[in-house]
């Protein structure tokens, strides 16, 4: 098992760096199409934390731990934003969403479509664990 840990500020301008770090860490061990989808899901989760977790625009740091094993990859995101359990979010009807044509609101739906999601509130932190079983069809 290999892993990396890093922290980044709760700013959307950090998204590109986060994606790059994950990409470099994973390397060529996983099919590029699958890497793209996994990185998309992490990007959606991080974007959601930054956009909704800090309504007072408080400067903070988000930590990310990535564990890569032969058969699975795990991302653990921890932030000090407001408590938010994405598993409580209302399911998105994509046909209805496309019909209404509104911007936003589907990020968590996409995360759940690609990854297994677990949420925990510990003391003052949100902990979001995203797991992908690499042996299953994506």
């Amino acid at each position, binding site marked *: 098992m290999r892993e990396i840990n890093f922290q980044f500020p709760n700013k*959307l301008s950090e*998204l590109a760096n986060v*994606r790059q770090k994950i990409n470099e860490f994973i390397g060529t061990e996983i099919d590029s199409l699958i890497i*793209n*989808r996994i990185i998309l899901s992490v990007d959606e989760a991080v974007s959601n934390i930054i956009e909704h977790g800090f309504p007072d625009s408080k400067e903070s740091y988000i930590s990310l731990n990535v564990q890569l094993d032969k058969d699975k990859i795990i991302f653990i995101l921890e932030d000090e934003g407001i408590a938010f359990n994405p598993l409580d979010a209302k399911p998105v009807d994509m046909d209805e969403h496309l019909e209404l044509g*509104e*911007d*936003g609101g589907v990020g968590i739906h*996409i995360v759940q479509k690609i990854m297994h999601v677990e949420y925990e509130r510990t003391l003052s932190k949100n902990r979001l664990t995203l797991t992908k079983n690499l042996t299953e069809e994506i």
Partner: protein
Amino acid sequence: MEIKESESKGIWILTLNGVMDAHTSPNIKTKLEAGIASGKTKIIVDMKDVSYLSSAGAGALLAGLTASRKKTGELRLCSFQAGVKDAFDVMGFSKAFKVFTDLDKALDGF
């Protein structure tokens, strides 16, 4: 995100270059809104130099599509890179749009 504009036979063509994530996509959304408000309702967004797309980018395009259709226009997409098209499909946005393999095909019959 770099946005190049051109016009051909009354069709507004936006060629995007860079990544479309939650940080960069508000720019394209604002650009589309301003153009549509000024009457540019027949739009092609050329995606050939877009290397990454998240739901924020797809949402900006969807908002542009909806706004153009309200003014009896249309927003077409063309020239996706394979990985970006896959993300677009996985997120479930593809069926709302007319997607073409290249700019000439997108212009054809518009």
